[in-house]
């Protein structure tokens, strides 16, 4: 993969794979210690909201995705795609104040992942890699270790393939949260995107490109899953050591 654009101040972070946006459901993700309610409306738009109803603080991810709005589980307050409150059941004939809204973040879908920018002023449109619509998304791996430790571990001896010619492949660092290894021999390249859940926890998202041939696909996915699981176990052992 090639660099598309340099990172900017209003950076965006991966928070989920697009498959995790199940119709009429609400996912709960975390980014830099903030809880986010993630949902897709029936029109296809992806929403990332502060996971907290402005009324009594209940997590909105407990609520209902009606296809156009989120409905809070506690008192049935409804919020439209802009985060604005549209209906308060205890006062059904009154129009809610226009200032009554949920905190929202900007989102984008790119490379099979959902991206969020915590900076409300800047749209989440800055990407480091060119999108390959045929890329294969790896199973995301949750690791109880800081992102910096994972980046270091990935850039020191991650093997993109078990083949001997791929043994020495190093993972190049694009920035502190984006790492890539080019294709080597028959092994396709892989790009990792790190989601800093909080200071101590990280999710590793991965993308294989170009897409492997159908008959090799499973072997490629297995290889990366094993590699990432070993990396996670080693990092978590280190973190747990006294």
């Amino acid at each position, binding site marked *: 993969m090639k660099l598309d654009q340099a990172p900017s101040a209003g950076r965006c972070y991966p928070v989920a794979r697009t498959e995790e946006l199940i119709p009429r459901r609400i996912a709960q993700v975390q980014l830099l210690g903030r809880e986010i309610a993630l949902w897709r409306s029936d029109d296809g738009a992806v929403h990332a909201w502060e996971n907290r109803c402005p009324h009594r*603080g209940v997590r909105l991810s407990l609520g209902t995705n009606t296809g156009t709005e989120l409905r809070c589980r*506690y008192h049935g307050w409804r919020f439209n795609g802009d985060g604005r409150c549209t209906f308060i059941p205890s006062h059904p004939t009154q129009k809610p104040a226009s200032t009554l809204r949920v905190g929202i973040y900007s989102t984008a879908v790119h490379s099979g992942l959902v991206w969020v920018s915590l900076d409300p002023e800047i749209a989440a449109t800055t990407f480091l890699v060119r999108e390959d619509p045929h890329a294969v998304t790896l199973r995301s791996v949750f690791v109880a270790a800081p992102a910096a430790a994972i980046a270091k571990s990935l850039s020191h001896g991650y093997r993109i393939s078990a083949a001997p010619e791929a043994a020495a492949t190093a993972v190049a660092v694009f920035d502190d949260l984006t790492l890539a290894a080019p294709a080597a021999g028959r092994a396709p390249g892989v790009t990792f995107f790190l989601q800093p859940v909080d200071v101590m926890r990280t999710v590793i998202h991965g993308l294989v490109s170009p897409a492997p041939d159908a008959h090799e696909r499973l072997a490629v996915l297995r290889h990366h899953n094993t590699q990432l699981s070993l990396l996670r176990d080693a990092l978590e052992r280190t973190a747990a050591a006294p």
Partner: protein
Amino acid sequence: MADDPEVESILWDDWHVVAEVSRLVEFGRFETVLLGIKVLLERDASGEITASRAGRDIGCVTLRYGFVWVCLGRPARTIVDFAECLEPDRLTASAGSVRVAVSGLRAVENFLDLSHLAFVHAGYLGEEPHTEIARYNVTLPPEGGVLATGCRVYQPKPSPMESQGFDVDYVYAVLRPYIVVLYKANPVERARKDMIALFVQPATEESCVAHILTCYLPHEVHPPAVRRFQQFIFGQDRPILENQVPKRLPLSPRAETSVRADGSSAAYRRWLGASGVRFGAIPT
């Protein structure tokens, strides 16, 4: 004691429920937490119940309404009085104790809350489309607390005995920062009311134990059914309470948006702030 946390006197020098008596009868000994302090309750062979902390006796321990009450400081007032519990035909029974991972102040506020009934207790204590909350009265009694009168909600199954829905009249009274009681119109005797009290034990600032006391009029009331019903209802509240962020109750009116239906909750928050309650709260 020197290692006492700095808990405000309104809580420290008051009585709090720490266990159901039946729990001690069964186990003889029970360890719990009150206002951040580990409390050990023991029942000896003669049936006497004692409380201690770190091996030292807590003098202020007594039994009332089927619960063990403790005061960690010097009691500035007596245990709340419920005249109803003295009426001989009433069935007074504990409906159980439930641990909740949230500030007890949030639990009290939820107990006061009318507009969640149609959503959290749908099919029992409320139901759509009966969601509108009619105007009710909120007053601050001179002795402290909050009183909400004239509350009326449609309930499909208002009690363990009812199978018919009807409009139910409620009165709510916050008596202490962590004690709230409701009076609910009895369907048989219109002039008298069933009573349910919630004694919330502030364990830590972000966790509590809710002890439920029911005092029903004797019409077709079966204590095991009452207990089951109250625990079922509280079981619906618990996951909501444990998903409130932050876990402590914010007292600033700007922290969370209130509407008119939240009149009692808004008054409760103001009263807590004015009374200097800090344990379990985010002060303004």
